[in-house]
């Protein structure tokens, strides 16, 4: 599903953000990417999304080597992934419904398909009653649910979440994590970059530790800091 082979990423400034990273996340897996800020987590996410190009090595996604993917194919690669960010990134002048439908417009879905799919995803994330509200009328947790609904609406094969609970209080953070877990149980691969230690410890999922650009540990059922 997602495979890194000896991937290095050096930025123009000379910073070596990722050093010789190799790992493989299988279809249907739930994996945490953990590490302190500046450890290279975000770069790994950007490499998966093809927002950044690796300096060397290969990245294989859904069986396809994306290293030499033409720029005009990148949008189609991204349609196979749903992305969730720490700051939600919702459009403030669009309602909850429109924010989710927007993702379907972009992939040129038919109006009929949109009318059927959006309410379904909104009920999945528990926001059926708030479809007509605007993002600023929602709590942080609800906004992140909208973002999740938007990520899910086009039926991606994987969800990539970059610090999805970073802006949320612990209870709400758990809500979101449980929702991600539920999505994972439906067969979607989930990759979560986070430094929410207690969540990682309790969820007993696969944990990939990254420190100063190096993958130092890959626990099948790990916790946050098992002696790095």
């Amino acid at each position, binding site marked *: 599903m997602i495979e890194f082979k000896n991937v290095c990423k050096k930025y123009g400034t000379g910073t070596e953000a990722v050093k010789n990273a190799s790992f493989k996340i299988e279809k249907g897996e739930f994996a945490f990417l953990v590490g302190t800020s500046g450890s290279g987590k975000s770069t790994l996410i950007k490499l998966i999304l093809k927002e950044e190009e690796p300096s060397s090595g290969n990245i294989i996604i859904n069986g396809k080597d994306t290293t030499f993917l033409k720029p005009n194919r990148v949008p189609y690669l*991204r349609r196979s992934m749903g992305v969730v960010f720490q700051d939600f990134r919702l459009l403030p002048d669009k309602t909850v419904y429109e924010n989710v439908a*927007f993702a379907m417009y972009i992939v040129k879905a038919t109006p009929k398909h949109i009318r059927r799919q959006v309410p379904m995803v909104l009920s999945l994330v528990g926001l059926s009653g708030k479809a007509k509200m605007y993002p600023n009328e929602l709590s942080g947790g609800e906004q992140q649910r909208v973002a999740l609904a938007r990520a899910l609406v086009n039926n991606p094969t994987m969800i990539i979440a970059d610090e999805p609970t970073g802006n949320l209080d612990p209870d709400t953070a758990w809500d979101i994590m449980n929702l991600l877990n539920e999505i994972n149980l439906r067969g979607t691969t989930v990759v979560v970059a986070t430094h929410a230690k207690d969540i990682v410890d309790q969820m007993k999922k696969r944990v990939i530790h990254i420190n100063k650009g190096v993958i130092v540990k890959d626990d099948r059922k790990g916790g946050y800091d098992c002696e790095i």
Partner: protein
Amino acid sequence: MRFNVINYLIGEGIKNLFKNKKSTISSLMIMCATMIVFGLFFVIGENINSFVENVAEAQEIRVIIDNEATEEDIEQLGNEILSIEGVRNAEFVSKEDALDYMKEMLGDELIEGYEDRNIFSVAYDVTLTDLELNNEVQESINQLPHVKNIVSANQVISQIISLAKGVRTVTAGILILLIIISVSIISNTIKLTVHARRKEISIMKYVGATNSFIRWPFLVEGIIIGIISGLLSVGIIGLAYTGIAGKLAETSFLELAHWKLLEFKDMFNLILVVYLGLGIGIGALGSGISMRKYLEV
């Protein structure tokens, strides 16, 4: 592409126009101003072109035929002249015509007595399709048999040609300037919209929107600004031109110069096509330029 997608893309473009009313209006105004300046030179240029054409039509080269030529020779010469590139017409001038012409030129007294022993040669009056071919045509005619000599106002012709060339160069220069100014204005306006919507654009990129899908609304915005300024400018130029031409027609200046101004409706089609073309082209180019940076997510 499906119909609803096209609707969506055009609708977004139109929404953009109203979201940034201030910058839309200011770029409309500046585009109009530059287009009107260009229009000024354009209508003057068109008038000078039509003037030159009229002069070209009236400008005759008299090809005088020697006395040995038989009637068949003369007829053949006429056909050969007509076959030269750039010749519009060749009209035969008989001995009598030539005499009348001289009378007109010099007055009856001087020519008196020549009626009985007409010494004037027969000739062809040749008109040209394009004055710039003047020299080539004369050279070709000179090589034909039975041509005695050629009489023409070479200096006048070359002056008219250089005047027409000058006007064309200035118009082209102004046009290029207009395009550069307008493209930068439009690209700035679109940049503001793009900047205001950069968050939306980045979300679109993450959800997997293709670049062309992201670009279209902005192209639509630029093209609409271009078309509206084009139409406004044509209207303003039309009104101003009709007014000024009317005033000029009342003075005797034009009559003295044998110059009849074109009517605006004669130029309307050309101006409309040129302006719509410019508006669409400039709008598309301007927004294309401003989009480049933001598409690299």
